[in-house]
């Protein structure tokens, strides 16, 4: 519970060295995963579209992203005339940083002993654990905003304005659903969240403990957070021709590309940590193979992200805001209250269905209250639409959705 055993005997030089090695290792893991992920996504999306995908560079085309990256590095770095030079140059790095450091709190499974120092297989295990994720996703929007604003042209600015509204909106859902997972665990430590889900494949995972809905809300919210399809209005090609990174080229654009995929990798890892048991899985021949399970789960989650991108069309702007504020935030709030209600059970002696209900009265009360309040909210939205003349869809979308 009290964090990494590495620091149990204070801080000395060996601990420092191990720390630095861990930092470099995590950095390398994320960057290599990005190289892999770009190809994975292109291959899978090609297959889903009944194509071959890139198959020229290297064995089966797997060196394509390396070739593309090298090509990008040697291109001319172009800065628009109207750009705000300093902010323009900083923005790509600010985009990359949150995506990279969020991976620090992901537990990859168990402990490891290096030179008599036992340490967790995770870079950092602070006591504010999962709040770190909310923090990084909160500041991730700065890269997008700064890039869009500093480019000095209108499409990037529109992209960044979209991004800021979208990311701040979905932040709330992310926080509420994370609170649900923390509630059933009783700790903010990511290591404790994983430990609480240990044992019993699937059955003990938070996805089951929280009745699936918070998991779905969290996944949708985090997809919106990283502005990935179907929430990629920030870079909608048809409307704003690429959005915030439109003016970037060469290595600066490479950073954006890298950041996007690093965020995908990190957020998938976070989904696994919070809801899918982290490195939990059956032992093979008596050995605990946490990291292997973790990688398998990563491949599955990443595949689903690619699948969603290949399947779903992009949302319209008003649909995006409606989904966030009128559907997902109330639902996340209701689920938080219901889970909290079921956590507040009292154990008394007795049997029968009445006794069962009495023990869980707060939980069932929360369900009833949630349903009533949700009905009230739906009614309120309808009344509001009629009052403001927004109930006619064709009219409304011309006015609201079309401009931003």
């Amino acid at each position, binding site marked *: *519970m*009290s964090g990494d055993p590495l620091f149990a*005997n*204070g*801080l*000395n*030089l060996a*601990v*420092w060295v191990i720390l630095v090695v861990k930092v470099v290792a995590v950095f390398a893991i994320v960057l290599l995963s990005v190289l892999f992920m770009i190809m994975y996504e292109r291959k899978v999306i090609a297959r889903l579209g009944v194509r071959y995908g890139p198959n020229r560079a290297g064995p089966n085309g797997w060196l394509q992203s390396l070739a593309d990256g090298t090509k990008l590095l040697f291109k001319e770095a172009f800065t628009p005339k*109207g750009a*705000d030079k300093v*902010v323009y140059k900083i923005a790509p790095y600010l985009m990359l940083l949150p995506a990279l450091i969020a991976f620090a709190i992901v537990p990859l499974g168990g402990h490891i002993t290096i030179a008599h120092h036992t340490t967790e297989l995770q870079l950092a295990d*602070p*006591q*504010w654990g999962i*709040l*770190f994720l*909310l*923090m990084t*996703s*909160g*500041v991730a*929007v*700065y890269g997008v*905003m*700064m890039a869009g*604003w500093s480019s*000095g*042209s*209108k499409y990037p*600015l*529109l992209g*960044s*304005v979209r991004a*800021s*509204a979208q*990311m*701040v909106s979905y*932040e709330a859902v992310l*926080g509420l659903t994370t609170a649900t997972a923390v509630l059933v665990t009783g700790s*903010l430590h990511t290591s404790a969240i994983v430990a609480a889900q240990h044992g019993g494949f699937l059955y003990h995972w938070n996805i089951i403990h929280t009745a699936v809905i918070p998991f779905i809300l969290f996944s949708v919210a985090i997809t919106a957070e990283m502005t990935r399809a179907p929430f990629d209005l920030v870079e909608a090609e048809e409307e704003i021709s690429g959005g915030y990174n439109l003016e970037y080229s060469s290595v600066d654009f490479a950073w954006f590309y890298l950041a996007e995929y690093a965020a995908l990798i990190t957020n998938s890892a976070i989904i696994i940590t919070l809801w899918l048991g982290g490195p939990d899985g059956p032992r093979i021949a008596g050995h605990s193979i946490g990291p292997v399970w973790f990688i398998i789960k990563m491949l599955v989650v990443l595949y689903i992200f690619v699948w969603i991108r290949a399947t779903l069309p992009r949302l319209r*702007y*008003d649909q995006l*805001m*409606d989904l966030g504020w009128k559907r997902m935030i109330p639902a996340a709030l209701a689920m938080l209250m219901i889970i909290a209600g079921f956590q507040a059970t009292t154990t008394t002696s007795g049997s029968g269905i009445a006794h069962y209900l009495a023990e869980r009265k707060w939980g069932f009360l929360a369900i009833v209250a949630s349903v009533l309040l949700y009905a009230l909210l739906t009614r309120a939205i309808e009344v*509001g*639409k009629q009052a*403001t*003349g*927004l109930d006619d869809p064709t009219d*409304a979308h011309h*006015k*609201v*959705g*079309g*401009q*931003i």
Partner: protein
Amino acid sequence: MLATLSAAMLADTSGQALAHASAWAVFAVGAAMILTGAAGVILLRNPVHSALMLVVTLFGVALEFIDESADFLAAVQIIVYAGAVVILFLFVIMFLGVDRKEAIAAEPTKLQKPLAALMGLVVLVEILALSRVDHWASGAPAQSGVLNGPGDNVQKLGQAVYTGYLLPFEMTAALLVIAVVATVVLSKRSAGSPERSSQGDAELSGRAGDPEDSEVSL
């Protein structure tokens, strides 16, 4: 100085010196960030740059919170202030197109600058005096607020908020809800102006829909 420091680190097996140096480095970096950010906010002329420097200050403050083992405050500092409040500042600045350089020379009030300088001086003297007089403002890691008993800082804060301080907590929440409702009511145009009354539903996008409001000037 650096050479002696590193020599001391190598000689010291218990890690006291290293731990001390790490804590000191965290404090120094945090303080430098706070001061740089604060100076940037008032000295830079572009409002967007000022807002970004404010973020630097907020991060510095978060760093100092961590140094004082107030982890939850640090996280909330970043999530709420850097992650939402300043984002909305930037949103408004970019949207309203006020992101040009401000003419600082033209002052609305004559006495503003001398008064500001005077107030700054008073605050500085106050802080210095307090650090001389009172033990809790000494700059050393907090002594009066040290945690007792088992449990993390975050855990204890949570228990305090939801048990002993539940009423103030709920009242704050109610206050915020009232503020939100008031904002919606105040920002909603009367039914008399037809081109704006139809946009009360989606406030953000509704504003964008109005070409006069969303003048993008770069």
